[in-house]
Protein backbone atom coordinates (compact mmCIF):
# COMPACT_ATOMS: atom_id res chain seq x y z
CA UNK A 1 0.00 0.00 0.00
CA UNK A 2 1.73 3.09 -1.31
CA UNK A 3 -0.69 5.49 0.35
CA UNK A 4 0.05 4.32 3.89
CA UNK A 5 3.63 5.53 3.74
CA UNK A 6 2.73 9.13 3.00
CA UNK A 7 1.21 10.16 6.36
CA UNK A 8 4.30 8.98 8.25
CA UNK A 9 6.59 11.34 6.34
CA UNK A 10 3.92 14.04 6.41
CA UNK A 11 3.77 13.94 10.20
CA UNK A 12 7.55 14.18 10.37
CA UNK A 13 7.69 17.25 8.12
CA UNK A 14 4.81 18.92 9.98
CA UNK A 15 6.45 18.19 13.34
CA UNK A 16 9.78 19.67 12.27
CA UNK A 17 7.83 22.72 11.08
CA UNK A 18 6.00 22.86 14.39
CA UNK A 19 9.31 22.95 16.27
CA UNK A 20 10.47 25.86 14.09
CA UNK A 21 7.21 27.72 14.74
CA UNK A 22 7.10 27.09 18.48
CA UNK A 23 10.77 27.22 19.43
CA UNK A 24 10.99 31.04 19.62
CA UNK A 25 8.06 31.04 22.06
CA UNK A 26 9.74 28.40 24.23
CA UNK A 27 12.99 30.35 24.11
CA UNK A 28 11.11 33.46 25.25
CA UNK A 29 9.36 31.64 28.11
CA UNK A 30 12.46 29.81 29.40
CA UNK A 31 14.80 32.78 29.15
CA UNK A 32 12.31 34.85 31.18
CA UNK A 33 13.33 32.59 34.09
CA UNK A 34 17.09 32.96 33.61
CA UNK A 35 19.20 35.12 35.90
CA UNK A 36 20.86 38.13 34.26
CA UNK A 37 24.28 36.54 34.57
CA UNK A 38 23.14 33.30 33.00
CA UNK A 39 21.41 35.16 30.20
CA UNK A 40 24.57 36.95 29.17
CA UNK A 41 27.06 34.10 29.62
CA UNK A 42 28.76 32.59 26.62
CA UNK A 43 27.05 29.29 26.09
CA UNK A 44 23.45 28.95 25.11
CA UNK A 45 21.06 26.62 26.82
CA UNK A 46 17.31 26.50 26.39
CA UNK A 47 16.52 25.64 30.00
CA UNK A 48 17.69 27.91 32.83
CA UNK A 49 20.04 26.42 35.44
CA UNK A 50 17.68 27.57 38.14
CA UNK A 51 14.28 29.10 37.58
CA UNK A 52 14.38 32.74 38.73
CA UNK A 53 10.76 33.74 39.37
CA UNK A 54 11.93 37.08 40.71
CA UNK A 55 12.19 38.36 37.12
CA UNK A 56 8.42 38.64 37.02
CA UNK A 57 8.21 40.59 40.26
CA UNK A 58 10.96 42.94 39.09
CA UNK A 59 9.33 43.27 35.69
CA UNK A 60 6.13 44.43 37.38
CA UNK A 61 8.08 47.07 39.32
CA UNK A 62 10.57 48.32 36.74
CA UNK A 63 8.34 48.09 33.72
CA UNK A 64 5.27 49.49 35.51
CA UNK A 65 3.60 46.43 34.04
CA UNK A 66 0.29 47.05 35.77
CA UNK A 67 -0.03 50.48 34.12
CA UNK A 68 0.95 49.03 30.74
CA UNK A 69 -1.49 46.19 31.17
CA UNK A 70 -4.29 48.57 32.14
CA UNK A 71 -3.62 50.81 29.11
CA UNK A 72 -3.53 47.83 26.77
CA UNK A 73 -6.80 46.46 28.13
CA UNK A 74 -8.65 49.80 28.03
CA UNK A 75 -7.37 50.54 24.55
CA UNK A 76 -8.21 47.13 23.07
CA UNK A 77 -11.67 46.98 24.68
CA UNK A 78 -12.57 50.52 23.64
CA UNK A 79 -11.40 50.06 20.05
CA UNK A 80 -13.23 46.73 19.83
CA UNK A 81 -16.51 48.17 21.12
CA UNK A 82 -16.29 51.24 18.87
CA UNK A 83 -15.47 49.16 15.80
CA UNK A 84 -18.33 46.76 16.54
CA UNK A 85 -20.75 49.68 16.82
CA UNK A 86 -19.58 51.63 13.77
CA UNK A 87 -19.20 48.51 11.63
CA UNK A 88 -22.63 47.14 12.39
CA UNK A 89 -24.27 50.56 11.92
CA UNK A 90 -22.44 51.13 8.64
CA UNK A 91 -22.95 47.55 7.53
CA UNK A 92 -26.68 47.72 8.24
CA UNK A 93 -27.15 50.98 6.36
CA UNK A 94 -25.17 49.75 3.34
CA UNK A 95 -26.92 46.38 3.31
CA UNK A 96 -30.56 47.25 3.98
CA UNK A 97 -31.40 50.92 3.41
CA UNK A 98 -32.05 52.62 0.07
CA UNK A 99 -30.74 56.14 -0.32
CA UNK A 100 -28.97 58.26 -2.92
CA UNK A 101 -25.16 57.98 -2.76
CA UNK A 102 -25.18 54.43 -1.37
CA UNK A 103 -23.08 52.89 -4.12
CA UNK A 104 -20.55 55.73 -3.93
CA UNK A 105 -20.18 55.41 -0.15
CA UNK A 106 -19.79 51.64 -0.38
CA UNK A 107 -17.06 51.99 -3.03
CA UNK A 108 -15.37 54.58 -0.83
CA UNK A 109 -15.41 52.25 2.18
CA UNK A 110 -13.90 49.46 0.07
CA UNK A 111 -11.19 51.79 -1.26
CA UNK A 112 -10.15 52.81 2.28
CA UNK A 113 -8.75 49.30 2.69
CA UNK A 114 -6.27 49.94 -0.13
CA UNK A 115 -4.50 52.82 1.63
CA UNK A 116 -1.30 51.68 3.36
CA UNK A 117 -1.06 52.54 7.06
CA UNK A 118 2.32 54.28 6.75
CA UNK A 119 0.75 57.07 4.71
CA UNK A 120 -1.20 58.24 7.76
CA UNK A 121 1.37 58.28 10.56
CA UNK A 122 2.66 61.78 9.79
CA UNK A 123 -0.59 63.69 9.10
CA UNK A 124 -2.61 61.85 11.75
CA UNK A 125 0.06 62.47 14.36
CA UNK A 126 -0.32 66.20 13.73
CA UNK A 127 -4.12 66.04 13.57
CA UNK A 128 -4.35 64.03 16.80
CA UNK A 129 -2.01 66.29 18.76
CA UNK A 130 -3.63 69.44 17.36
CA UNK A 131 -7.24 68.27 17.61
CA UNK A 132 -9.37 71.33 18.37
CA UNK A 133 -10.96 71.87 21.79
CA UNK A 134 -9.48 68.81 23.52
CA UNK A 135 -6.44 68.42 25.76
CA UNK A 136 -6.28 72.18 26.37
CA UNK A 137 -6.24 73.05 22.66
CA UNK A 138 -8.14 76.11 21.43
CA UNK A 139 -10.47 75.97 18.41
CA UNK A 140 -7.44 76.13 16.08
CA UNK A 141 -5.85 73.16 17.80
CA UNK A 142 -3.13 75.22 19.47
CA UNK A 143 -1.87 75.91 22.95
CA UNK A 144 -2.71 72.58 24.56
CA UNK A 145 -0.76 69.71 26.00
CA UNK A 146 -1.30 66.94 23.48
CA UNK A 147 -4.83 67.28 22.09
CA UNK A 148 -6.39 63.85 21.82
CA UNK A 149 -3.10 62.37 23.03
CA UNK A 150 -3.58 64.11 26.38
CA UNK A 151 -5.81 61.16 27.22
CA UNK A 152 -6.39 57.56 26.16
CA UNK A 153 -8.50 58.98 23.31
CA UNK A 154 -5.26 59.42 21.34
CA UNK A 155 -4.75 55.67 21.36
CA UNK A 156 -8.36 54.85 20.58
CA UNK A 157 -10.15 57.40 18.38
CA UNK A 158 -7.97 57.03 15.22
CA UNK A 159 -8.98 53.32 15.16
CA UNK A 160 -12.71 53.76 15.80
CA UNK A 161 -13.83 52.87 12.28
CA UNK A 162 -12.65 49.92 10.20
CA UNK A 163 -13.36 49.54 6.49
CA UNK A 164 -12.85 45.81 6.83
CA UNK A 165 -15.37 45.73 9.69
CA UNK A 166 -18.05 47.65 7.77
CA UNK A 167 -17.53 45.36 4.78
CA UNK A 168 -17.71 42.20 6.91
CA UNK A 169 -20.92 43.32 8.64
CA UNK A 170 -22.53 44.41 5.36
CA UNK A 171 -21.91 41.01 3.80
CA UNK A 172 -23.40 39.31 6.84
CA UNK A 173 -26.47 41.57 7.19
CA UNK A 174 -27.24 41.26 3.45
CA UNK A 175 -28.19 37.63 4.15
CA UNK A 176 -30.79 38.60 6.76
CA UNK A 177 -34.34 38.47 5.34
CA UNK A 178 -35.95 41.89 4.74
CA UNK A 179 -39.18 40.49 6.19
CA UNK A 180 -37.82 40.80 9.75
CA UNK A 181 -37.31 44.53 9.31
CA UNK A 182 -40.58 45.10 7.45
CA UNK A 183 -42.77 43.33 9.98
CA UNK A 184 -41.07 45.19 12.84
CA UNK A 185 -41.85 48.47 11.08
CA UNK A 186 -45.46 47.46 10.59
CA UNK A 187 -45.62 46.68 14.29
CA UNK A 188 -44.47 50.25 14.86
CA UNK A 189 -40.94 49.62 16.13
CA UNK A 190 -38.63 52.64 15.96
CA UNK A 191 -35.55 52.50 13.72
CA UNK A 192 -33.07 52.41 16.59
CA UNK A 193 -35.03 49.59 18.14
CA UNK A 194 -35.04 47.65 14.88
CA UNK A 195 -31.29 48.01 14.70
CA UNK A 196 -30.45 47.18 18.32
CA UNK A 197 -33.12 44.58 19.09
CA UNK A 198 -33.63 42.81 15.78
CA UNK A 199 -30.54 43.21 13.57
CA UNK A 200 -27.75 43.19 16.17
CA UNK A 201 -28.77 39.92 17.91
CA UNK A 202 -28.82 38.17 14.53
CA UNK A 203 -25.27 39.30 13.73
CA UNK A 204 -23.62 37.81 16.82
CA UNK A 205 -21.44 35.32 14.88
CA UNK A 206 -20.05 38.09 12.68
CA UNK A 207 -19.63 40.40 15.67
CA UNK A 208 -17.67 37.69 17.50
CA UNK A 209 -15.31 37.33 14.56
CA UNK A 210 -14.81 41.07 14.27
CA UNK A 211 -14.35 41.46 18.04
CA UNK A 212 -11.58 38.90 18.37
CA UNK A 213 -9.93 40.28 15.23
CA UNK A 214 -9.95 43.86 16.49
CA UNK A 215 -9.01 42.99 20.07
CA UNK A 216 -5.89 41.07 19.06
CA UNK A 217 -5.00 43.61 16.39
CA UNK A 218 -5.15 46.59 18.73
CA UNK A 219 -3.45 44.71 21.57
CA UNK A 220 -0.48 44.09 19.28
CA UNK A 221 -0.44 47.43 17.44
CA UNK A 222 2.90 49.11 18.01
CA UNK A 223 3.81 52.08 15.81
CA UNK A 224 0.89 54.39 16.61
CA UNK A 225 1.11 53.56 20.31
CA UNK A 226 4.84 54.39 20.15
CA UNK A 227 4.06 57.78 18.57
CA UNK A 228 1.39 58.57 21.17
CA UNK A 229 3.80 57.56 23.93
CA UNK A 230 6.28 60.12 22.60
CA UNK A 231 3.64 62.82 23.20
CA UNK A 232 2.42 61.52 26.55
CA UNK A 233 4.26 58.71 28.31
CA UNK A 234 1.21 57.90 30.40
CA UNK A 235 -0.14 56.22 27.26
CA UNK A 236 2.41 53.40 27.01
CA UNK A 237 0.87 50.06 26.11
CA UNK A 238 2.54 46.69 26.79
CA UNK A 239 4.55 46.45 23.52
CA UNK A 240 5.63 50.11 23.80
CA UNK A 241 6.55 50.00 27.49
CA UNK A 242 8.65 46.87 27.06
CA UNK A 243 10.44 48.20 23.98
CA UNK A 244 11.15 51.51 25.74
CA UNK A 245 12.61 49.82 28.82
CA UNK A 246 14.86 47.85 26.54
CA UNK A 247 16.36 51.00 25.10
CA UNK A 248 16.75 52.82 28.41
CA UNK A 249 18.48 50.33 30.65
CA UNK A 250 21.58 48.20 30.48
CA UNK A 251 20.59 45.36 28.14
CA UNK A 252 22.58 42.65 29.90
CA UNK A 253 20.79 43.37 33.17
CA UNK A 254 17.31 43.78 31.84
CA UNK A 255 17.03 41.22 29.06
CA UNK A 256 15.37 38.53 31.23
CA UNK A 257 12.98 41.20 32.54
CA UNK A 258 12.15 42.15 28.96
CA UNK A 259 11.45 38.49 28.24
CA UNK A 260 9.23 38.27 31.33
CA UNK A 261 7.35 41.35 30.14
CA UNK A 262 6.97 39.85 26.67
CA UNK A 263 5.59 36.63 28.15
CA UNK A 264 2.96 38.69 29.99
CA UNK A 265 2.18 40.66 26.84
CA UNK A 266 1.83 37.66 24.53
CA UNK A 267 0.77 34.50 26.37
CA UNK A 268 -2.72 35.69 27.46
CA UNK A 269 -3.44 36.75 23.88
CA UNK A 270 -2.19 33.45 22.47
CA UNK A 271 -4.44 31.52 24.86
CA UNK A 272 -7.37 33.75 23.92
CA UNK A 273 -6.61 33.05 20.26
CA UNK A 274 -6.44 29.29 20.76
CA UNK A 275 -9.86 29.30 22.46
CA UNK A 276 -11.50 31.56 19.90
CA UNK A 277 -9.53 30.59 16.82
CA UNK A 278 -12.67 29.31 15.08
CA UNK A 279 -14.02 32.87 14.94
CA UNK A 280 -10.68 34.40 14.07
CA UNK A 281 -10.09 32.01 11.19
CA UNK A 282 -13.53 32.82 9.83
CA UNK A 283 -12.58 36.50 9.75
CA UNK A 284 -9.35 35.75 7.91
CA UNK A 285 -11.20 33.66 5.34
CA UNK A 286 -13.59 36.50 4.77
CA UNK A 287 -10.67 38.81 4.26
CA UNK A 288 -9.28 36.34 1.79
CA UNK A 289 -12.44 36.05 -0.24
CA UNK A 290 -13.69 39.61 -0.22
Amino acid at each position, binding site marked *: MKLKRIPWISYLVILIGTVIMIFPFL*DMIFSSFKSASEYSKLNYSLLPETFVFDNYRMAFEQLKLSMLFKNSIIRSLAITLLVLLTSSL*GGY*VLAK*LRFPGKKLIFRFVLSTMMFPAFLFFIPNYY*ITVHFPLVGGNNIFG*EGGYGGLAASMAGLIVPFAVSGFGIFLMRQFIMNIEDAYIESARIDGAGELRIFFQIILPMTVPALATLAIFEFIGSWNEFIWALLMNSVNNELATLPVGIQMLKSHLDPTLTQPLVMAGLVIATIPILIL*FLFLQKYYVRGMMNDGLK
Partner: protein
Amino acid sequence: MKSFGLRKETVLAYSFLIPILLFYIIFLVIPVVFSFVISLTEWGGFDLESMTFVGLDNYKKIFASDSTFLNPILTNTFVFAFGSVALSFIAAMTVSFLITRLRWQGLWRSIYFLPAVTTIVAIGNVWLYIYNPTNGILNEILTSVGLKPVNFLDNPSIALWAVIAVSGWLGIGGAVLILTAGLKGIPHDYYEAASLEGAGMWRQYFSITLPLLRPTILFVLITSFIGGLQSFTLTLVMTRTGGPGNSTNVGALEMYNQAFSFGNWGVASAMAFVLFVVIFIITMIQLIVFRKGGVESY
Protein backbone atom coordinates in the same frame (compact mmCIF):
# COMPACT_ATOMS: atom_id res chain seq x y z
CA MET B 1 -39.30 47.59 1.77
CA LYS B 2 -42.04 49.73 0.29
CA SER B 3 -43.74 50.53 3.59
CA PHE B 4 -41.09 53.13 4.30
CA GLY B 5 -40.65 56.41 2.43
CA LEU B 6 -37.45 56.97 0.46
CA ARG B 7 -36.95 60.39 2.02
CA LYS B 8 -37.33 59.07 5.52
CA GLU B 9 -34.94 56.23 4.68
CA THR B 10 -32.35 58.67 3.31
CA VAL B 11 -32.48 60.80 6.46
CA LEU B 12 -32.14 57.67 8.58
CA ALA B 13 -29.24 56.28 6.53
CA TYR B 14 -27.23 59.48 6.68
CA SER B 15 -27.85 60.01 10.38
CA PHE B 16 -26.46 56.50 10.98
CA LEU B 17 -23.54 57.22 8.65
CA ILE B 18 -22.59 60.64 10.03
CA PRO B 19 -20.08 59.37 12.63
CA ILE B 20 -18.43 57.11 10.06
CA LEU B 21 -18.22 59.76 7.36
CA LEU B 22 -16.90 62.33 9.85
CA PHE B 23 -14.22 59.84 10.94
CA TYR B 24 -13.13 59.22 7.38
CA ILE B 25 -13.00 62.95 6.61
CA ILE B 26 -10.87 63.70 9.69
CA PHE B 27 -8.58 60.67 9.72
CA LEU B 28 -8.40 59.69 6.03
CA VAL B 29 -9.40 62.36 3.50
CA ILE B 30 -7.85 65.40 5.19
CA PRO B 31 -4.66 63.44 6.08
CA VAL B 32 -4.06 62.34 2.47
CA VAL B 33 -4.39 65.93 1.22
CA PHE B 34 -2.43 67.30 4.19
CA SER B 35 0.29 64.74 3.64
CA PHE B 36 0.68 65.79 0.00
CA VAL B 37 0.86 69.45 1.04
CA ILE B 38 3.57 68.61 3.62
CA SER B 39 5.53 66.80 0.92
CA LEU B 40 5.86 70.14 -0.91
CA THR B 41 7.32 71.92 2.11
CA GLU B 42 10.22 71.95 4.49
CA TRP B 43 8.77 71.40 7.94
CA GLY B 44 9.74 70.05 11.34
CA GLY B 45 6.19 69.21 12.39
CA PHE B 46 5.74 72.09 14.84
CA ASP B 47 3.40 75.01 14.18
CA LEU B 48 1.95 75.49 10.71
CA GLU B 49 3.54 78.95 10.31
CA SER B 50 6.99 77.37 10.25
CA MET B 51 6.18 75.47 7.03
CA THR B 52 8.24 76.64 4.05
CA PHE B 53 6.94 75.88 0.59
CA VAL B 54 9.70 74.30 -1.52
CA GLY B 55 7.75 72.95 -4.50
CA LEU B 56 8.99 69.61 -5.78
CA ASP B 57 12.42 69.88 -4.07
CA ASN B 58 11.75 66.94 -1.75
CA TYR B 59 10.83 64.71 -4.68
CA LYS B 60 13.95 65.88 -6.56
CA LYS B 61 16.05 64.95 -3.53
CA ILE B 62 14.48 61.49 -3.44
CA PHE B 63 15.13 60.88 -7.13
CA ALA B 64 18.59 62.51 -7.21
CA SER B 65 21.41 60.26 -8.42
CA ASP B 66 23.13 60.24 -5.02
CA SER B 67 19.89 59.54 -3.16
CA THR B 68 19.91 56.56 -0.84
CA PHE B 69 16.13 56.24 -1.16
CA LEU B 70 16.13 54.58 -4.58
CA ASN B 71 19.16 52.48 -3.88
CA PRO B 72 19.55 50.73 -1.51
CA ILE B 73 16.34 51.58 0.37
CA LEU B 74 13.69 51.01 -2.33
CA THR B 75 15.67 48.06 -3.70
CA ASN B 76 15.74 46.59 -0.19
CA THR B 77 11.99 47.13 0.08
CA PHE B 78 11.42 44.98 -3.00
CA VAL B 79 13.98 42.35 -1.93
CA PHE B 80 12.33 42.25 1.50
CA ALA B 81 8.84 41.80 0.05
CA PHE B 82 9.97 39.21 -2.55
CA GLY B 83 12.08 37.29 -0.06
CA SER B 84 9.44 37.14 2.69
CA VAL B 85 6.71 36.14 0.26
CA ALA B 86 8.85 33.46 -1.40
CA LEU B 87 9.82 31.96 1.95
CA SER B 88 6.39 31.94 3.50
CA PHE B 89 4.72 30.84 0.28
CA ILE B 90 6.93 27.79 -0.29
CA ALA B 91 6.61 26.77 3.35
CA ALA B 92 2.86 27.38 3.38
CA MET B 93 2.28 25.39 0.17
CA THR B 94 4.06 22.40 1.73
CA VAL B 95 2.35 22.72 5.09
CA SER B 96 -1.17 23.24 3.73
CA PHE B 97 -0.76 20.38 1.25
CA LEU B 98 0.31 18.06 4.06
CA ILE B 99 -2.13 19.06 6.79
CA THR B 100 -5.21 18.68 4.59
CA ARG B 101 -4.46 14.95 4.62
CA LEU B 102 -3.57 14.67 8.33
CA ARG B 103 -5.59 14.46 11.51
CA TRP B 104 -5.83 17.45 13.88
CA GLN B 105 -5.84 19.86 10.97
CA GLY B 106 -7.15 22.74 13.08
CA LEU B 107 -4.41 22.24 15.66
CA TRP B 108 -1.59 22.35 13.09
CA ARG B 109 -3.12 25.39 11.44
CA SER B 110 -3.32 27.22 14.78
CA ILE B 111 0.29 26.41 15.64
CA TYR B 112 1.56 27.79 12.36
CA PHE B 113 -0.59 30.87 12.91
CA LEU B 114 0.70 31.71 16.42
CA PRO B 115 3.36 34.23 15.29
CA ALA B 116 0.72 36.17 13.37
CA VAL B 117 -1.21 36.94 16.57
CA THR B 118 1.91 37.89 18.54
CA THR B 119 3.09 41.45 18.90
CA ILE B 120 6.05 42.26 16.63
CA VAL B 121 7.92 43.59 19.67
CA ALA B 122 8.00 40.05 21.08
CA ILE B 123 8.84 38.45 17.72
CA GLY B 124 11.67 40.90 17.05
CA ASN B 125 13.23 40.62 20.49
CA VAL B 126 13.09 36.84 20.65
CA TRP B 127 14.73 36.56 17.23
CA LEU B 128 17.38 39.05 18.31
CA TYR B 129 18.20 36.56 21.04
CA ILE B 130 18.15 33.63 18.59
CA TYR B 131 20.52 35.55 16.29
CA ASN B 132 22.72 36.72 19.17
CA PRO B 133 26.39 36.34 18.07
CA THR B 134 27.69 35.21 21.48
CA ASN B 135 24.93 33.16 23.08
CA GLY B 136 22.08 32.70 20.64
CA ILE B 137 20.98 29.22 19.68
CA LEU B 138 21.79 29.58 15.98
CA ASN B 139 25.44 30.30 16.64
CA GLU B 140 25.51 27.60 19.28
CA ILE B 141 24.44 25.16 16.57
CA LEU B 142 26.94 26.56 14.05
CA THR B 143 29.88 26.33 16.44
CA SER B 144 28.89 22.87 17.67
CA VAL B 145 29.23 21.52 14.13
CA GLY B 146 32.59 23.26 13.78
CA LEU B 147 31.55 26.36 11.84
CA LYS B 148 32.48 29.92 12.68
CA PRO B 149 29.86 32.02 14.50
CA VAL B 150 27.98 34.47 12.27
CA ASN B 151 27.16 38.04 13.19
CA PHE B 152 23.75 37.84 11.58
CA LEU B 153 22.58 41.39 12.15
CA ASP B 154 25.93 43.21 12.08
CA ASN B 155 27.08 41.85 8.75
CA PRO B 156 25.69 44.12 5.98
CA SER B 157 25.56 41.31 3.45
CA ILE B 158 23.56 38.98 5.72
CA ALA B 159 21.48 41.33 7.89
CA LEU B 160 18.69 41.95 5.38
CA TRP B 161 18.25 38.21 4.84
CA ALA B 162 18.22 37.61 8.58
CA VAL B 163 15.25 40.00 8.89
CA ILE B 164 13.60 38.49 5.79
CA ALA B 165 13.83 35.01 7.34
CA VAL B 166 11.87 36.21 10.39
CA SER B 167 9.33 38.00 8.22
CA GLY B 168 8.88 34.88 6.09
CA TRP B 169 8.48 32.73 9.23
CA LEU B 170 5.88 35.23 10.44
CA GLY B 171 3.88 35.03 7.22
CA ILE B 172 3.53 31.25 6.95
CA GLY B 173 0.40 31.01 9.12
CA GLY B 174 -1.70 33.51 7.19
CA ALA B 175 -0.83 31.88 3.87
CA VAL B 176 -1.58 28.40 5.28
CA LEU B 177 -5.01 29.59 6.39
CA ILE B 178 -6.00 30.85 2.94
CA LEU B 179 -4.36 27.99 1.04
CA THR B 180 -6.07 25.28 3.13
CA ALA B 181 -9.41 27.00 2.50
CA GLY B 182 -8.62 26.90 -1.22
CA LEU B 183 -7.57 23.24 -1.08
CA LYS B 184 -10.79 22.30 0.70
CA GLY B 185 -12.76 23.98 -2.08
CA ILE B 186 -11.49 21.46 -4.64
CA PRO B 187 -14.17 18.73 -5.04
CA HIS B 188 -13.02 15.34 -3.82
CA ASP B 189 -14.59 13.61 -6.85
CA TYR B 190 -11.84 14.95 -9.09
CA TYR B 191 -9.19 13.09 -7.14
CA GLU B 192 -11.26 9.91 -7.01
CA ALA B 193 -11.83 9.99 -10.76
CA ALA B 194 -8.12 10.60 -11.33
CA SER B 195 -7.17 7.70 -9.03
CA LEU B 196 -9.48 5.40 -10.96
CA GLU B 197 -7.77 6.49 -14.17
CA GLY B 198 -4.49 5.52 -12.51
CA ALA B 199 -3.02 9.01 -11.93
CA GLY B 200 -0.43 9.01 -9.14
CA MET B 201 -0.09 11.57 -6.34
CA TRP B 202 2.26 13.92 -8.23
CA ARG B 203 0.24 13.70 -11.41
CA GLN B 204 -2.90 14.57 -9.44
CA TYR B 205 -1.09 17.47 -7.78
CA PHE B 206 0.05 19.03 -11.04
CA SER B 207 -3.10 18.29 -13.07
CA ILE B 208 -5.81 18.97 -10.50
CA THR B 209 -4.57 20.73 -7.37
CA LEU B 210 -2.31 23.39 -8.87
CA PRO B 211 -4.62 24.55 -11.71
CA LEU B 212 -7.69 24.71 -9.46
CA LEU B 213 -5.75 26.44 -6.68
CA ARG B 214 -4.45 29.11 -9.07
CA PRO B 215 -6.81 31.92 -8.01
CA THR B 216 -6.01 31.29 -4.32
CA ILE B 217 -2.29 31.19 -5.04
CA LEU B 218 -2.48 34.47 -6.96
CA PHE B 219 -4.40 36.05 -4.12
CA VAL B 220 -1.89 34.93 -1.48
CA LEU B 221 1.15 35.95 -3.52
CA ILE B 222 -0.02 39.40 -4.49
CA THR B 223 -1.65 40.47 -1.22
CA SER B 224 1.33 39.33 0.83
CA PHE B 225 3.69 41.05 -1.60
CA ILE B 226 1.79 44.31 -1.14
CA GLY B 227 1.85 43.74 2.62
CA GLY B 228 5.61 43.15 2.45
CA LEU B 229 6.20 46.45 0.65
CA GLN B 230 4.46 48.32 3.50
CA SER B 231 5.97 46.43 6.39
CA PHE B 232 8.58 48.06 8.62
CA THR B 233 7.73 47.31 12.27
CA LEU B 234 9.85 44.17 12.37
CA THR B 235 12.82 45.98 10.85
CA LEU B 236 12.33 48.83 13.33
CA VAL B 237 12.34 46.47 16.32
CA MET B 238 15.27 44.39 15.07
CA THR B 239 17.58 47.05 13.62
CA ARG B 240 16.03 50.34 14.77
CA THR B 241 17.32 52.52 11.89
CA GLY B 242 17.71 49.92 9.16
CA GLY B 243 21.41 49.42 9.83
CA PRO B 244 24.20 48.47 9.55
CA GLY B 245 24.45 51.38 7.12
CA ASN B 246 21.26 51.18 5.14
CA SER B 247 21.59 47.46 4.55
CA THR B 248 18.24 46.52 6.12
CA ASN B 249 16.47 49.85 5.61
CA VAL B 250 13.11 49.77 3.82
CA GLY B 251 10.95 52.58 2.42
CA ALA B 252 8.37 52.91 5.18
CA LEU B 253 11.06 52.73 7.90
CA GLU B 254 13.11 55.47 6.23
CA MET B 255 9.94 57.59 6.05
CA TYR B 256 9.25 56.93 9.74
CA ASN B 257 12.78 57.81 10.82
CA GLN B 258 13.02 60.89 8.58
CA ALA B 259 9.85 62.24 10.22
CA PHE B 260 10.06 61.11 13.81
CA SER B 261 13.82 60.76 14.42
CA PHE B 262 15.19 63.57 12.24
CA GLY B 263 12.19 65.94 12.00
CA ASN B 264 12.23 66.11 8.19
CA TRP B 265 8.48 65.91 7.74
CA GLY B 266 8.61 67.26 4.17
CA VAL B 267 11.05 64.67 2.82
CA ALA B 268 9.32 61.94 4.84
CA SER B 269 5.92 62.80 3.36
CA ALA B 270 7.36 62.82 -0.15
CA MET B 271 8.81 59.36 0.51
CA ALA B 272 5.43 58.18 1.78
CA PHE B 273 3.82 59.37 -1.44
CA VAL B 274 6.40 57.77 -3.72
CA LEU B 275 5.99 54.46 -1.90
CA PHE B 276 2.22 54.86 -1.95
CA VAL B 277 2.23 55.37 -5.73
CA VAL B 278 4.42 52.28 -6.19
CA ILE B 279 2.03 50.21 -4.06
CA PHE B 280 -1.01 51.72 -5.79
CA ILE B 281 0.31 50.69 -9.22
CA ILE B 282 0.90 47.14 -7.98
CA THR B 283 -2.61 47.08 -6.46
CA MET B 284 -4.05 48.08 -9.84
CA ILE B 285 -2.05 45.34 -11.58
CA GLN B 286 -3.38 42.95 -8.93
CA LEU B 287 -6.99 43.88 -9.71
CA ILE B 288 -6.41 43.23 -13.43
CA VAL B 289 -4.58 39.94 -12.78
CA PHE B 290 -7.36 38.78 -10.43
CA ARG B 291 -10.10 39.55 -12.93
CA LYS B 292 -8.25 37.55 -15.57
CA GLY B 293 -7.11 34.85 -13.15
CA GLY B 294 -10.67 34.09 -12.11
CA VAL B 295 -10.65 35.35 -8.53
CA GLU B 296 -14.37 35.92 -8.11
CA SER B 297 -16.05 39.25 -7.44
CA TYR B 298 -12.98 41.40 -7.93
